[in-house]
């Protein structure tokens, strides 16, 4: 289960701050949606369902972009590694 670190929040404008190291990030509107859905602990399928209802895209594109997004979160040290190990 992919989990975003609990102390990390995102503003409506997509501003993300990591209090543990002071780094900040910015996300575009779709990035904000992905971020929030992951943060809420929604499973991948539900996230795709949500997005497909709202946006003109397809499952393959979402799958690819989702895994790319998660990889970036990981690279920026925004994911809770322990949660992943426990799962």
């Amino acid at each position: 289960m992919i989990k975003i670190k609990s102390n990390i929040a995102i503003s409506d404008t997509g501003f993300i701050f990591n209090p543990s190291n002071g780094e900040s990030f910015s996300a575009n509107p779709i990035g904000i949606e992905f971020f929030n859905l992951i943060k809420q602990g929604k499973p991948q399928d539900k996230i795709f369902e949500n997005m497909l209802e709202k946006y003109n895209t397809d499952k393959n594109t979402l799958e690819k972009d989702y895994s790319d997004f998660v990889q970036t979160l990981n690279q920026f040290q925004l994911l809770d590694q322990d949660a992943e190990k426990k799962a």
Partner: protein
Amino acid sequence: MEKQRYERPVIKMLESNMPNKFGLRTEYKPKTHIDNVAVKDLINEYSSPLFVISEKTIRSTYKNAKKSFTTRYPKVQFAWSYKTNYLSAICNIFHQEGSWAEVVSGFEYDKAIKNGVDGKKIIFNGPDKNEKDLTKAIKNDSLIHIDHLDELYTIIELSEKLNKKPKVAIRVNMDTGIYPMWDRFGFNYENGQAWDALNKIMRSKKLELVGLHTHIGTFMLSPQAYGTAAFKLADLAIGIQKKYDHEIKYIDMGGGFASKNTLKGSYLPGVDTSPSFDDFAETITSALINSDFKPDKLPLLILETGRALIDDAGYLLGTVISNKRLSDGKRTTIIDVGVNILFTSFWYDHKVTPAQSFTQYTEDTVLYGPLCMNIDVIRENASLPLLNKGDHVVIHHVGAYNMTQWMQFITLRPKVVMIDMDGKTHIIRENENINSITDFEKVPEYLKKFEL
């Protein structure tokens, strides 16, 4: 409810606001139309990639350049530099506007004749003119610009054989304060080579010396260098007048004006830094007018401007194939435009704009072409809006040198279409197909069969 346009999710680390090596973002608006024709429709009808030429831009750029010179000098003549773009439709637009032809090979010479240019209005430049080419040019009274002494002697011999007085000029190279100095073509001004060649021509009495030519370099950003060059050619012309009582009919300043492209490594975009036609015209014409020519004896001023007249009129349309990441996480986008058809990407950071609407979000991206080769990089660093697979992009200022230096390598060369003055499109060069390549090959009989 209508669904919203999807965009890739991105998250970027915020750094200090210093401009980075990806440069300042300049592409704020999508390029959805070229001369009111939708990019999407062009790709649907003619496929992707696709070169698109705007006739309107060619004619307006030409008129603009011509005006810069004719408002400052009494006698001006442009000669279209064939090597810059020798698609016949394009040459003929320039010829309709009044341009002569400037060619640098037997092939280009024949193309100009085939396009219907009067031989007297063809300037024949270049180091490689064989006897056959020269014979043709002499018979047609073309203007032969001599590059080296071997050529000079060949022309003298041919003049005797053909019993005709060839019309010649010499190409002069010189120090104009520009590095590198293009001293491999023609005769040097400073060390006396130019005078030596002129003396040989005048003493032979077999040739008619009609002009003096120079071409100081390409993508020149310094108008002042042209002022120096014009001054030195004027000095030679006046010297010939004094020494031989012979009047030079024209001074040909060659090409080389920078276009609006951005050279690799420059910090500011070319649109903001390249001098205008007015800037070049001002220095060239003042140098000639302020020289010792008598006011009523000013020679004709010839210009062989290439890239600055055609770059802006050419676009290359392409399509996104895929978005990927490199091992270090760096974003890369692959498009169907490779360096094989966009040769100028080796020199320029071409402006690339999405052809559909986008948000203000951008990613620092490496833009790759479709070739399975490491050198196939269209932009090493571009700050680009988020592109999806299948999206279209427009590459700007590609009219010069691409449609002549392109290579049939791995993929076939695409169509070139032109949008005319009324917004109608015309194919001016068909795309290649497999036969365009195999028709020229010959397979020996014994190699025709194999079993695997």
